[in-house]
């Protein structure tokens, strides 16, 4: 069962594209593969729409699908030697050079901290603490018990705090 009509699907795509993109990137899908992954998320969403509980918000459901796609990506690539990501150029960047550097450093700092989390913890922490999604919605989107979400959140946050404080 697909989306009821193309216009509704288009509206969902329009509103959620960037959130899905960012979520996948934060779960470790590199820029070179993220377009494929976003494509897959929306294709699956369209075909699975029949399983979507419309009483619930759309974004957590989509991010739940994105989590599964990201986990598949990681399984496929776990044996590979990581390749250095080329820095993206921002030819039209209107910011001052020091702002650009500071922003890039902040982003790296965040990802270094996220890298300490396993993917289950990362999925929860990013959804809750970067997307602002409440715990019950996360539990529903990931199809895990509420207490599991709380536990992953607690462990994940402890690791992030340690990383940001420079603790081992």
């Amino acid at each position, binding site marked *: 069962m697909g989306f009821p009509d193309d*216009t509704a699907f288009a509206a969902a795509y329009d509103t959620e594209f*960037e959130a899905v993109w960012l979520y996948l990137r934060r779960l470790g899908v590199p820029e070179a*593969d993220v377009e494929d992954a976003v494509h897959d998320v929306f294709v699956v969403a369209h075909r699975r729409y029949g399983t979507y509980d419309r009483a619930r918000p759309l974004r957590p459901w989509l991010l739940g699908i994105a989590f599964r796609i990201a986990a598949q990506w990681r399984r496929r690539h776990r044996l590979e030697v990581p390749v250095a990501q080329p820095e993206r150029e921002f030819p039209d960047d209107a910011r001052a050079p020091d702002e650009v550097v500071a922003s890039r450093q902040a982003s790296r700092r965040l990802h270094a901290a996220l890298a300490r989390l396993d993917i289950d913890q990362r999925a929860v922490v990013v959804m809750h603490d970067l997307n602002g999604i409440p715990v019950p919605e996360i539990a529903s989107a990931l199809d895990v018990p509420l207490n599991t979400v709380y536990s992953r959140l607690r462990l994940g946050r402890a690791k992030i705090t340690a990383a940001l404080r420079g603790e081992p």
Partner: protein
Amino acid sequence: MSERLPGELPDEWEDLGRADASELAPPAGAKERVQRRVAVTLGLGAGFLAATAAGSSAAAAGLGGAGAAGGAGAAGGGTGAAATGLAGALLVKKLLVMGVVAAVGVGGGTAAYLEVRSERARSRAPVVTPPPAPAPVARPVAPPVPEPAPAEAPVDTLGEERGLLDGARQDIARGKLPEAGALLDRHAAEFPSGQLAEEREALVIRLLLREGREREARSRAQRFRQLHPRSIQLPGIDDALRERR
């Protein structure tokens, strides 16, 4: 922000999230490019493509609750995009026929037209250590894509299809041509009319070129063009054929 019960995060967290959202924001044209691919895979028409053509990508994708999050470049999108909405939608319909997709600028509502190129040729990360290229093998490569995929393909196979094609693409990039061929053959056997059948055929053509089987590549490309005259894979196929010349 919602409840913050189990453990606290350092104060800098929200600033880091905001900076990260702007660093990782999709590049110009990505939204339209992916949208077109989704439309091809699902067999959706202009109703899907035109409906969002004028939309801004100002979705709050960053920190929930922190209003300005994810907003790099999103400011001012609303009114400008609305004003150019109708014109944008009409142009998109026209340009899609020409294999070109329209991207409505987020900031000022100006329209930029981006050619749909081989998204992979440009964006793949470099390869670590390419092993020596093996000699071409006489291997029957998968038959050309049959006519359009059935509308209700099973949902759960997309990951499997993606895995096979992902592997094949990497093998081609690393010069592991027999391995790539084996994966493509497997995809063709298991998913003859799969959701990613067009992507498979584009990879087969690329592989044939790498194997030096240029005539076969060209005839398959020609057949592909007849079957899928508006495929998003065509620009990439053309690029590969041109490089060969």
